């Protein structure tokens, strides 16, 4: 698909040297990462929120970002989403350096972030929320009056919602009457409805009950089945083990380990998050 000369990525020693203990990646070396953050630093006043953090999201994987409070997870997420500008370092999409000055630019590059507050409108129904700000219009001259093509939007919204197997009672249901998991799912539908290839999720299961959490994890699996790359920031290691293939551990603003989920144990992750080393002091 791409010219091989454009792919300096995985084989590039510089890119990998910063990822401590990085295992040999399963991804084909000739395919660039869907999204990569290299040596990203960000300071807020005198506080270094991120200092040369690295993160690489391969195509089609679910990749968890974990770390204790203050490890820099949210800052990294906001930089990728275009909400913050990094002080130094690069963001690459499909191996090409990009500038992400604002959230809209990230969306145009095919990267959508689903934040915790979701940005949904409680007083509109699911279809209206899916198309909010990107409505479909009837053909001119009706479109000049801003006449919406509700029928088409509802039909497409129905397709996306059934594709993710979201159970809502009706496409006309207002968002305000939905549960937390349903709302999360609608926010994800909104992201994939517009050709997004990479979805970043910020604490997708925070404040959800057991059944709701299961439903959201199911949505993430479906995204994976549909070939999308998902990066999720999560506090819940059980969720990480349930859906993620790889994980990146941040500590004090640095990436200290990127590994396959099946290669580490829960105890090792906790020790890496808190103490920075995998082995218990003997």
């Amino acid at each position, binding site marked *: 698909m791409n010219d091989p000369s454009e792919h300096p990525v995985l084989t590039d020693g510089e890119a990998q040297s910063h990822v401590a203990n990085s295992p040999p990646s399963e991804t084909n070396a000739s395919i660039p990462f869907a999204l990569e953050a290299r040596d990203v630093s960000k300071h807020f006043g005198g506080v270094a929120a991120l200092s040369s953090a690295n993160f690489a999201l391969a195509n089609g994987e679910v990749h968890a970002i974990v770390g204790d409070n203050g490890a820099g997870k949210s800052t990294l997420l906001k930089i990728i989403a275009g909400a913050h500008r990094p002080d130094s370092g690069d963001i690459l999409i499909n191996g090409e350096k990009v500038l992400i000055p604002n959230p809209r630019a990230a969306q145009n590059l095919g990267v959508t972030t689903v934040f915790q507050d979701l940005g949904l409108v409680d007083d509109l129904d699911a279809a209206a929320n899916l198309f909010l700000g990107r409505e479909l219009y009837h053909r001119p001259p009706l479109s000049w009056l801003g006449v919406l093509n509700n029928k088409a939007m509802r039909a497409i919204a129905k397709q996306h919602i059934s594709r993710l197997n*979201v159970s809502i009672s009706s496409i006309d249901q207002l968002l305000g009457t939905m549960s937390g998991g349903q709302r999360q799912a609608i926010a994800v539908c909104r992201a994939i409805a517009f050709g997004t290839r990479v979805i970043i999720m910020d604490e997708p299961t925070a404040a959800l009950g057991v059944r709701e959490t299961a439903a959201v994890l199911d949505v993430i699996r479906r995204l994976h089945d549909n070939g999308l790359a998902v990066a999720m920031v999560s506090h819940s290691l059980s969720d990480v083990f349930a859906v993620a293939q790889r994980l990146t551990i941040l500590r004090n603003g640095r990436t200290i380990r990127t590994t396959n989920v099946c290669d580490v144990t829960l105890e090792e992750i906790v020790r890496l998050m808190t103490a920075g080393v995998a082995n218990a002091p003997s």
Partner: protein
Amino acid sequence: MSTATATARQTTPILKYTHLDNRDIQRIVVNIIVLLIIGAYVQLQNGYFFTSANLWSLFTQIAVVAMIACPQSLVMTSGSIDISIGGVVALTGVVAGLLFVHGWPLWLCFVVAVLVGALMGLLNSALILLLGIPSFITTIGTLYASQGIANILTNGLPVSAVPPSFSTIGTAQFFSAKIPVQVFYTIGVLLIFMGVQRYTNLGRYAVATGSNRRGAFANGVPVRRTIILCFILCGATAGWGGVAYGARIGTPVPVVDPDILFQVIVACVVGGTALTGGRGSVFGAFTGAMLIATVNDCLDLLGVSTYWQYVALGALLVVAVGADTAVRGVHKTAGGHRFRFPDISQTS
């Protein structure tokens, strides 16, 4: 279609078709039922309510309120409120009257009045957006300003020596049934704004802006343009209403009629429009206005004094809003979601 619809809660077709499980529509239906009950009671008492003469007079009395309530419900849905309509009605009535006295053609007076109203709407929204003052305060300011300008234009007096032909745009009657022109104005405005609310991006953006302004903005909704357009439409309709009202009286007066101002807001609220934004129905506001008119008219027909009509209007507002709040408050403790009426199709 697939699992999404398979798991959907089954609703009886009639409820689904009429959207009667929607609480805004329930509100409207309740309004109409109450209106008909009151009317039927008075009809039984003196046999005069359901006569064309009474109904047309009722309609003419409330026309200006019903007209302005339509765009006002849109403004309130978007999270603002336009108090200045009272002043705009006075100002535009005076402007149209003065221009007609100066020999301008009637249609041009009408157009200028609507434009003046739109300009006031633009001014309102510009002040709100540029200075960040809450709309409630801003539009109280422009309410006084527009009343002041109306008084300056006429030296504080009613517009004198208006040719009687001016009244035709307020009092003309059509067809053998003698349908007053005000009925056509009201229905016209109602249909325009029902269309705007239901079928255009402005209606949808108004809900988004009033419900979650930051989220709407982050999703690319033109929040500022939405607010500006809502106020312009409200001002323009107030201008239209100002001409219709001034022409009905015959001599436009530069005085704010507090009845018009407050009845518009009461009509919106009784019609299910939330003062907090995000929820509102143009048709609901219309039924609210008709309910106010019916209550006033029936108290007239029953020979109750005008002063008691004010008490009735106040009671209507408090009962309508109180019932809404009580019902929502009860449900909030139960689960944090909006109140929904029990699904009667689920009864076993």
